[in-house]
């Protein structure tokens, strides 16, 4: 239904694949800003884990806080 087929008049398909094939030297080796290449096997995203846990901790804290403000506290609440 979404896929419309029309006669191919001006279709330009080139075989030059310069964007998607990996050159002989890896991108990391060509890039002077990169000190060393880290492969999937040696990569441990510990920093990401730390940040994610921090985010969750903040979410949980805010929820607890919100619970006190909204439901346990004396502040205006919807059911009044």
């Amino acid at each position, binding site marked *: 239904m979404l896929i419309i087929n029309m006669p191919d008049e001006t279709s330009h398909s080139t075989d030059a694949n310069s964007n998607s094939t990996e050159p002989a030297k890896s991108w990391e080796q060509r890039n002077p*800003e990169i000190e060393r290449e880290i492969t*999937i096997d040696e990569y441990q995203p510990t920093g990401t884990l730390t940040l994610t846990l921090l985010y969750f901790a903040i979410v949980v804290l805010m929820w607890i806080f919100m619970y006190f403000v909204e439901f346990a506290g004396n502040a205006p609440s919807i059911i009044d």
Partner: protein
Amino acid sequence: MTFLHQYPKAAKVAKANFIVAFIALAIGGLFGFIQALHRTDVFRGFFNSGEYYTLLTGHGVLLALIFTTFFIAGLFVWGVTRSLDREPENMTFTWSWFWLMTIGLIMTAVTILGGLVPDSSIRAAVLYTFYPPLQAHPAFYIGLALVIVASWMAGADWFWSYNKWRKNHPDERIPILTFMALFTMMMWYVCTIGVAVEVVGLLIPWSLGWVTEIEPLLPRTLFWYFGHAVVYFWLLPAYYVWYAILPKLSGGRLFSDAMTRIVFVIFLLLSTPVGYHHQYADPGISVGFKFYAMATTMLLLLPSLMTLFTVVASMEHGARQRGGKGYLKWIGKLPWDSPAFVGCALAGIMFAAGGFSGMINASMNINLLIHNTIWVPGHFHLTVGTAVALTFMAISYWLIPQLTGRKLKFKTLALIQPYAWFLGMTLMSNAMHRAGLAGVPRRTAEPQYSGFEFEPIFGTMAEMDWQIAIGGTILTISLILFLWVITASWMGGEKSDRPVDDYIPEPLSGAEHTPKILDNMKLWFALAIILVLLAYSFPLWEMISDGIFEPGALPRPS
């Protein structure tokens, strides 16, 4: 060789879309500045309060609907062309959707701006949510309908390219840049059915006077059927940038191809059947359906959290390849001097903050505390106003050179721009959230009432008003910087064969580790339709039996 030289035809289309997007951004942003000064009573000399709603409509429509849609079209033309390695199949078709979309935009914009012309009978101060009882000139709705139809054609264009590509590459995985674009468009097809029915079936006949009475609940429901998914239509292209390009800008690679595809599949499935979470306060919809929408909304947190993890892990990979160490110290090794990187990264941080207020909005009971207060604009300026808009601006610093074959000019100004946006938005949004908690309404030219004082939880009203105005001013300065850098680079940047490093490395964990079933578009599309039917058929049936087609009749108890 950069994109311009390899795909000159696609580059032209993408550039045309970006030009329209940036003009909409400029005008819409100017209106935002005026609003921020007007509603806080810092300066009310530009327009009188009656015209505020015309400006607000212009701001919402030009930024949330027009800027986003055109930018997304340009971005996807770039991504699909490049990843499938083929120019659009038929340039007449491609240009025809571009021009149709532009004609639609002009009709819509003219009706809105007509409200600023004294004694003009052409008006459309109906806000970007445009459902009754507010009524606009028919050309407003017709223009919007054209934009939607043209966006469908754009999607068809990309599916067309994909089908052609598939014939030559029967066994390959869908390239990730195309995968994300096609899934976003499938979601768009599912959700725009709602507005299309609303606009063509109800609003156009009503604005032409053929139908005189409309029960407001039906168009509201149809609008919000579209209205939540549209936020993902804005957001997924930002994710597109974060998944596909940001890792490379950070000096690393996308962490996982499979994770990326799973996230887009979940968004296709769950984006639409949650629309009732914008109607928590609407009578006429059973609380059970609202609860179902709330539960689904909470499920939608999952793909956003997966995105948080994958994108941060990809950035961390980059930082460690650049020599970063430790649990948090690696963050300092990220390229905080690259405008494109900084914009995307700050946009992502704001989005995480928007997640906090989003969870409040999504909770059915707590929502009532902030419903229709300025808290809500405070929230979505973090999401669409920053996560999306700042990402789009930032990635323009990387895309426009590829499309024009010119280097970026004024890199220092370009670097200041995202930081300024982040600062301005924090100030404005923080004060909007706080004012909303005090009950200050949104969409109000003069939120002051005689014999009544708002009571902020802390601080004073005057202090919050000033914070909004100052934040809005910094945002406007940032926007001017952006437009200046882009215009100058576009017109006068140094010509180059390789104006930026546009190479995108393969993911760390590539498509070969991704389950094949994720690429089965028919399956996921069918499931998405089934979920929508489940979520919407019962409530619609309930509304019909409540007499939605007999406007003016007394409600019957159900």
